[in-house]
Each structure stands twice: as structure tokens, then as C-alpha cells.
């Protein structure tokens, strides 16, 4: 790794060669919208809201790239709010607003870009899912389970467990619901039961405080992969 310099909206910034542009910009206080990004999982470039316009020479040919996946190099010139960038962002927000008007946080984000209603109508059949894929990546990369994936293609694409049936490998940890930016994934708890993705899990009581705090299946799985004994995991994090 070597330290390099890039220019963003006229400001000179230091960066490590090869690190992704989004991280550099955010570290330096630039405000870029994202819906499919989370620092804990690998970037995927799905929502494309973090698009920036780049060029290598002042006045040279430019192109739009997604900053979450663009590796920076010496001399890169970035515009984060050019006309093209704003066109892409506004269009994406207007398209998403038409797809999922109910998605949590989306109307507010769109309003920041001056979009309060979408010319493309308002759908009702996609729930709140914008297909950002954060749940899929969190399940695979953070939890290590791969219970979720994308099914079908194009406009029919949906997120869910295999064949959209209750998954035998899902441990009911709820990481997907936690990471979901729009509140699409619903996890409910009632007494000693937790429900998610159509599967019901029996919960374990904390050995000390007595509250139901995690599905048995999850604790067994955690014990298996971490080597920590099940008895130790039977105590909730608050009482540990």
C-alpha cells in the first residue's frame, strides 16, 4: 500500500492506493447516499446511489462509477455532485420510490434530492424490498450461513431462502432483519417463539435474568463454530 493523492470536488485528499473511493470520501466528510452499503459486508454496487463522476485529467473524458467499488489511484479527479451524478441519483431515487413507496427512509432520502412523488407511479407488490442484497451478504459473510439468496431474474427478482420455503440452515439470528435498510424483513417474537422467513424458532431463556434472548438453534450453531460451550452461551450478553 502506498499513499496517494486524489482530488474530490476541488479538495485534495490523501488515500491508500487501491482502497475504495466511497471510504475515502466518507472519511473526509463527504456526504454520499447509499442504500446497499454497510461497512461490515463487502460492497456490491447494486443501488448505485454512490455514483460519482471521475476523470484523470482536468477537462478530460469523464465517466460515472460507483464509488463503493472503485479503487482509487494517484491523480484521480472526482466530482460527487456533478450534473450527471445528480441525474443518476435522482433517477434511481425516483425509480425506487415508485417501486417501494413504503420503504423506510426512502421518501426522506428522495426528498433531500427534491423528489416527493414519482412520475413512474407507485407499486404495491414489492413490499419494502429494494433488492439491495445487504441481507444476503450479511447472512453469508457475517453469519456464515448462506440461508438467503436472490431468486429469479430481472424484474421478477426476489430475496429469500431457497425456493422461498422455510430454510433448514437458517439459524434465526435476525442479522438480515437488522441490516435491512428499508424494514422489509420482518422478525416477530412472542413468548418463547421467534418467527422469521416463515420459520419458527424456539427461544432459550437466559440462565441468569430469565428473559428469552436467542433461538436454541442459533446458540447450538454458535457453540459449534466458535467452540464456546453451550452452557456459557446460555447466559445473555447483558448478564455475561
Amino acid at each position, binding site marked *: 500500500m502506498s499513499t496517494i493523492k486524489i482530488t474530490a470536488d476541488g479538495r485534495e485528499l490523501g488515500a491508500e492506493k487501491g482502497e475504495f473511493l466511497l471510504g475515502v470520501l466518507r472519511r473526509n466528510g463527504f456526504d454520499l447516499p447509499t442504500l446497499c452499503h454497510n461497512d461490515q459486508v463487502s460492497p456490491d454496487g*447494486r443501488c448505485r446511489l454512490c455514483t460519482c463522476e471521475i476523470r484523470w485529467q482536468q477537462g478530460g473524458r469523464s465517466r460515472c462509477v460507483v464509488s463503493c467499488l472503485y479503487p482509487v489511484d494517484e491523480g484521480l479527479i472526482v466530482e460527487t455532485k456533478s450534473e450527471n451524478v445528480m441525474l443518476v441519483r435522482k433517477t434511481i431515487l425516483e425509480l425506487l420510490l415508485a417501486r417501494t413507496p413504503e420503504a423506510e427512509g426512502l421518501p426522506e432520502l428522495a426528498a433531500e434530492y427534491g423528489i416527493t412523488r414519482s412520475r413512474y407511479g407507485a407499486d404495491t407488490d414489492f413490499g419494502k424490498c429494494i433488492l439491495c442484497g445487504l441481507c444476503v451478504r450479511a447472512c453469508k459473510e457475517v453469519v456464515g450461513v448462506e440461508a438467503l439468496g436472490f431468486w429469479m431474474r430481472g424484474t421478477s427478482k426476489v430475496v429469500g431462502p431457497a425456493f422461498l420455503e422455510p430454510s433448514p440452515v437458517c439459524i434465526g439470528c435476525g442479522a438480515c432483519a437488522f441490516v435491512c435498510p428499508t424494514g422489509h424483513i420482518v422478525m416477530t417474537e412472542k413468548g418463547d417463539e421467534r418467527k422469521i422467513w416463515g420459520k419458527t424458532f424456539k427461544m432459550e431463556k437466559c440462565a441468569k435474568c430469565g428473559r428469552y434472548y436467542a433461538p436454541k438453534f442459533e446458540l447450538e450453531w454458535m457453540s459449534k463454530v466458535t467452540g464456546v460451550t453451550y452452557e456459557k452461551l446460555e447466559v445473555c450478553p447483558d448478564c455475561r
Partner: protein
Amino acid sequence: MDFKALQGKSRQEYKKRLGSDKPVIYVGAATCGMAAGAGELLKMLPQELDALKVNADVVRVGCIGPCCLEPLVDIQKPGKPRLSFHTVNPRKLKTILEDYLVKDNPHPELALGIVGEGRLDGIPNLFDHQMLKGQVRIALRNCGHIDPNRIEDYIARGGYTALEKALKMAPEQIIDWVKKSGLRGRGGGGFATGKKWDSVRNAEGNIRYILCNGDEGDPGAFMDRSVMESDPHSVIEGIIIAAFAIAWQKAPAEGFFYVRNEYPLAVRNLLIALDQARKNGFLGKNIMGSGFDFDVKINRGGGAFVCGESSALMRSLEGRVGEPRVKYIHASDKGLWEQPTNLNNVETYACVPEIINKGADWFASIGTKGSKGTKVFSLVGKVNNTGLVEVPMGITLGEMVHKIGGGIKNSKKFKAVQTGGPSGGVIPENMINLPVDFDELTRVGSMMGSGGLIVMDEGDCMVDVALYYVKFLEEESCGKCVPCREGLRRMKQILKRITEGKGAIEDIDTLEELGRAMELGSLCGLGQSAPKPVLSTINYFRQEYEQHIKEKRCYAGVCTNLISFMIDPEKCTGCHLCEVHCPSNAIKGEKKKPHILNQEVCIKCGICYDVCRDDAVIKR
């Protein structure tokens, strides 16, 4: 058997067949020929020959190009040239067998031309035919001439000599030749092939993957299929040369051929060809004694159009979901399984042996400044001659349509050409003198793509055309990124509204804005070029959009919601023909009296318009 001996044997056999003392019957049996009815002819032939007591060899060859003339059957009698007959059906086959094979009447009215050397009175050479005359055949050099399932045929026509030559060259020299030849990727991107090979050779990694993209999926395009079916060895030879140039003395190499499974004959012929290449020492360990090891495996596609996109193709090969990914780090550095990967199209590889055989300068002497060599186009749509044509780069659209294509069908008026597949643009009639090459097509808002060329006449509605392509792309979008997935869906909705007469004038601006954002913001080539059919039709045919919106009229007579059919009482002779054919019983009338069409019941199928012999049905 060493190569010299194999060559000698192959040439002898091939020569023997050309000068055979037995009659030889060649049947064009690629998918196009089979679809036109060659299968039935092949089934018939042995019985017919038995009945006529003729002992003849039947050879299944590939496709020579002119689809509109299929099925093609060629007859070569001892001491006579190979004579080609077109649009042969069982009845015609009987006639030519009886009259030409047994007797000596070549039926000039049924014969198309002579293939190869020799003359017959009153019959021209096949390559003097309007459609074939302006062609320069490099990628299609063997198509239709050889039996694709016989490696000997390929070798007899100079096959694998380029590989033999290349294996004695330094890899850098091969790459240098390809660079000098000016060969650019034929799959659509138009990237300089030599430059790509160079980057893959010099990338860091412990293996080199050599891939061939045979996942051709554009509607109306079938260039690669024809080459894979009719001359598989030329592609394989190109791949081996590429592998040697890229990997020799650098790293081991492994090859994959990605073919769409909807091309069963291509898969079959490639499998046979790979097997023959292996048996004869062109693939496997120590290729032709050079010490170079390389093999190619076939991978059949699962039916997704987007898997023809390079990064999606590699994900698919890895066994993952066929979604593209950003290419800020090139596949030449990190492609398949994160290793240096070279991906070229079928046609690109097929050109390589000829470049090695005839030299870079020869190849570079054909074509334009920025686009060298030839390009195979599938010329389809409203032209008289449809099929595959290989022409030098820089030929004008006009020459393609009016000379090679033989003009517009049914003497209608030429309107536009759509190039570059579903995500290409439409080029209007007034640009007929545009030279066809990579840069010119991009400049006018279309693209070369893989080489689809769809000709449209006055009966084609440009809004409907845009809707057709957007529908296709919407179905084939992988759905990964928002601009492509959501943008195409909305474009389709807006276009559909316009064709139904429910559009608003602001819709045109919305389409343009959305299209621009999709071009800028989409992840892969599919999304970035997807708005082209819409943007180019708005650019060149804006008035048609306005007519649909303001006047609620489709002057091309395509959009059913905006047209109606009427019967002209002056012209109607009361023949009942329309009444009989109308599927919705919308037409009534007494014999020999003008009929009446009930607008309430009419479903606007246009059958009455087509069947009327007196032009009494008016469409407006």
C-alpha cells in the same frame, strides 16, 4: 500420425471427393438448413438414390449463408462442377435427381450456381450471386464447403497450418502480429484483441484462463452459431493459438468454451471437433510436439441472455448466479476465479488462424482505418436476400441493404436499419451512406454489437420497435442494479402507454431523461446500452412518437389500438373472402354486395387486409 502425414492424407481424401468418380450430394445441414426442411431431404435421399439405382455419397455440410435460399442441395457429378440448387423441397429434389443426376439437364431455372471451379453452360458461379458477390470470407471461409464433423476436411483446406506455424513463433511475436492486424473483438465491445492478449500474458497469476464466448443471444443474430456449427475447428484452432500466445512459458493454461444450450447442433459439432483435435494431438499434452499443454472444456449456458456479458459469463462458469460485476479491475487481471482471463468471441478466434497464415498486413489491408478485416452480419428483416454475409468493414449500409440484401421486399419503402442487437440503435434512411464500422456506428448512436442487421420498411412503427426491444431487455435484465432493472420496466410501461394512444407529450422527455440516466448509471453493458433503441428512435423519428401521442395515429399501421380497418364499398366485390377469414365474425355481407365491418367486434388482426384481392380493405 504426424501432421505432415495427416495433411497429406486429408488433402488426398478431399481431392478425391472433389474429383470423385461417384456422384457426391452435399446438403446444407446446419440449423438454418434443417429448419427449412433439409432433414426431410436427408431422410429421403437414400431411398430416392436406391430407386434410381445410383450409388452416390451424401455429405452433410454447414451453412454457406443465404438463408432465404435454404435448403441448399449441391450435386457434383463425376467430371462436372459442384452445382447448387436452392429452396429444394421433396418434389424439387426428385426432379433434380431424375433430371440432372440421372439424365443431364441442369435445370438452370432451379440451379443457383456453381460452387468452386468449373463451368456449366448458362449457370453462373455461386459467388457471383447478388448476395455473395460483395463478400470477403475470412471467418466463414470454410462454412458450407466442409463437413464440420470431419477434421480431415478442415485440414485439407489449410486447417491447423496456422497452429503449426504459431507454435514455432515466439508468443510475443504472435501477439505482435495480432496487434498489427488491427483485429478488434467481434462480440460487440470492439476491444483490440492483441492488446487484450498482451495484458493477460503479462498479468500476475498462476494460471491463464482462455475463454470463448459462444453465448450468442441477440434476437435475429446467428453469426456465431453458424461458425460453430459449420466450421468448429477454425474457432478451436484460434483458441489454441491464443492460449499459446498468452500462456507459453508464463503459466499453465486452461480453456472453456461457453456455448448456449439452445444451440444443440453447435454443442454437438464442437464436442466432436474437440475430440478429434485431441486425438490428432492439437489439444492435450505436448501439442504438436511443442511441449505446450492445453485443453478446452465445453460449458453449456443456462439460457440467460446476460451471461453473454463477460463478467456474468465468468460468474456463470464459476457456478454462481450469472450477474455481472463492475470491471474497474479488468478480467485480464482478475477474471475467472480471480485469475488472469482472456475472453474472446467465436468470430474473433475464427479470424486468428487466417491472420497467422496470411500475415497481419494482409488482414490490415481490409477494412477501414479503425476497424480492420471483415465482419459477419446477419442481414434480416424486410430485405429480399436474408442470411449471413461477411463483408469488409467500411461497406455502406446502402450497399448492404440494396446490393447484398437485394433491396426491400415487396417494393416497399426503406425506412431504417437496426444494428447491434436488442440494445443497438436505429439508423434512419438518410444515413444510408454511413460506412459500417465500430466507430461510425457508435457515433450515430447505435453500435456494432455482435452483428445483427435488421432492415425495416415503411410498415414498421418505430415506437413499436422500441417497445419490442425494451420488452426483450426487461425480460433479460439480471436485476442486479436499479437503473437497468427498474428503468427498463418503466420504459416499457411508458412505451406501451404511447402505443395504446394513452401517452402524454411529457413522456418523450421522461424517456430521454431516464435513458440518459440508465446509460450513465447502469452496471454492465446491457443496462448501459439498453436505452439505445428508445433514444435513437426518439432522436431520428420523434414525429412518430408525437403522432402516437397527439394525433393518436400510428401511420405505419402497427399499433392496434390506434388503427382501424374499413371496407371501401366502391371497391368491395362481395367475394366473401374477408368474411370467411375473419376470426371474430366482424365482417358480414351478402354475395356480390359490399360487405360491412363491425368496428365493435373487430380485433384488428389485419387478416381481411391481407386476404382482400381488390384492395377494398382500408387500414388507417
